[in-house]
């Protein structure tokens, strides 16, 4: 059985609108509908989609905050909405834009309180604190009240806090939002190490495709409440009608190159751009071009993942 099992999961909201002085109409909005996926222990899954696509609603249902209006969800063998507090001991949740630390208290006190609330054994607590504090570079910040921390420092604190009780799953909602390049890089490195060394399952929602490329083996794309893509990152590039580009630098200017399986999309002096389906190999194309023309240089450009995803949303 998978660690996370979601089947036909749906959540509808009723939105009441004023229609005239006293009359009100209600509109049913489907935030998530018929969502189905499974995540195995040890996976790192990117959960992406445009604003309002249903990402947060899904995470809230998987943590037990929201009760689904249809379908089912099982996390670590528990039904989240019914066994919310029990599940809380087995998962960690980090919301990027807010903190679950105690605002006016130093990090150390927040950690200590969590140790008691979760009844974390001393040995586990000390080991986790040492490991995570060192790796997240929090050593000098333990005695600073949370409100005085920078965004990046607070995020690191939040992640360390969410991991103290050895959760099997870590949900991260926009973990790198607002962070600078260096902080982002460090955080990604930490998460990768966490997944490798402790086999912690990671599910992260993000707008930053850099996070996905750096971390995730698998991507689930959600649009309008339903999954429009679920698979490994490389096949996201090949699927969705994306194309790769072969850039050819000829020795002399020439008429557009005519070869099978590709078409010229742009010509600029001796340089020509040839588009070909992302699913096919570049090798036959390269040999055809090299055989027919005087080539000075060649390079292949992978499709931009943002374009691919934009295509998915549009379709």
């Amino acid at each position, binding site marked *: 059985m998978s660690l996370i099992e979601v089947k036909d999961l749906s959540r509808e909201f009723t939105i009441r609108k004023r229609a005239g002085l006293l009359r009100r109409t209600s509109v049913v909005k489907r935030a998530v509908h018929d969502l189905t996926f499974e995540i195995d222990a040890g996976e790192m899954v990117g959960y992406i989609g445009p604003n309002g696509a249903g990402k947060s609603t899904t995470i809230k249902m998987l943590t037990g905050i929201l009760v689904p209006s249809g379908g089912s969800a099982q996390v670590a063998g528990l039904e989240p909405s019914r066994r919310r*507090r029990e599940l809380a001991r087995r998962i960690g949740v980090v919301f990027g834009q807010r903190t679950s630390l105690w605002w006016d208290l130093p990090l150390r006190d927040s950690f200590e309180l969590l140790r008691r609330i979760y009844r974390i054994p001393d040995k586990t607590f000390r080991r986790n604190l040492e490991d995570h504090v060192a790796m997240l570079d929090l050593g000098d910040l333990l005695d600073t009240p949370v409100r005085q921390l920078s965004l990046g420092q607070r995020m690191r604190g939040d992640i360390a806090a969410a991991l103290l009780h050895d959760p099997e799953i870590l949900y991260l909602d926009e973990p790198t939002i607002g962070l600078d390049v260096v902080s982002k890089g460090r955080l990604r490195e930490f998460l990768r190490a966490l997944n490798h060394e402790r086999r912690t399952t990671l599910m992260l929602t993000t707008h930053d495709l850099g996070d996905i490329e750096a971390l995730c083996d698998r991507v689930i794309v959600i649009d309008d409440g339903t999954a429009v893509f679920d698979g490994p990152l490389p096949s996201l590039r090949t699927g969705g009608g994306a194309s790769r580009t072969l850039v050819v630098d000829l020795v002399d200017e020439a008429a557009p190159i005519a070869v099978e399986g590709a078409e010229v999309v742009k010509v600029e002096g001796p340089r020509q751009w040839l588009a070909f389906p992302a699913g096919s190999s570049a090798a036959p194309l390269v040999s055809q071009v090299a055989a027919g023309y005087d080539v000075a240089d060649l390079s292949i450009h992978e499709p931009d993942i943002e374009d691919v995803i934009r295509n998915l949303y549009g379709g």
Partner: protein
Amino acid sequence: MRAYWLIALLWIRAALSYPVSFWTMMVGGVLITFLDFVSIWLMFTHIDSYGGFSLREIGLLYGVTSIAFRIADMLVGSVEKIGQKVRSGDLDAMMTKPVPVLVQLCADRFELRRLGQIGQGVAVFAWAAPIVDWNPQRLGVLVMAIVSGVVIYFCVFVTFSTIQFWTTDASEFANAFTYGGNTIMQYPMTIFPREVVRSLTYLLPLTFVNWYPCLFLLGETDPFGAPGWFRFASPLAALVLVGITALVWRQGLRRYRSTGS
């Protein structure tokens, strides 16, 4: 309970780490609530009795309701700020922890400095206490009244704050019943129309906090003719209110969990 004190203790420690600010706030709280009773005292420089009650008798009513109310106020912590916690997303964070949300809300921002306000209630009570002819029964009724009173006010705080799950800006509405209720109970019920006293017995049973028990302490019968056993019924009123509060709270949380806002 254990979690409540763990979180509360943390806030106490945090408050005590700024001792100057802690003591200023505490003394300030005492002074403000002290002025509150001074206004009643000033009134008595012109009159000898109000609603048939002397200043010390009113002091007794005032003391009992204040002690109960201020203790409850200290225990409910951030419950009054549910709406704000919903908007900031803090409530979501609380729901991902293995402690009941109500416990976390109550323990959040536990304010030890409210001990000052409780102290003021105790002081007024101590000043008024000599008019009671104390015996073990009366002492028993007093303890029962204060414990029940804390529970009753606690329930009123929670019930009316829960409304914020439906309309997030209802905190002022709740204040009318909590702080407003306490202010009304500082006066003898004889100054109010019968309908008000009835409402405060059967709808919002605040009269069980101090009015009926104090009648017993003073050896009086109810001028409105309420049954004699009402004077001992405070725990019953508290129990009924606990039941209602639990229901309302569950409904509120259920609503939140199906709307997410």
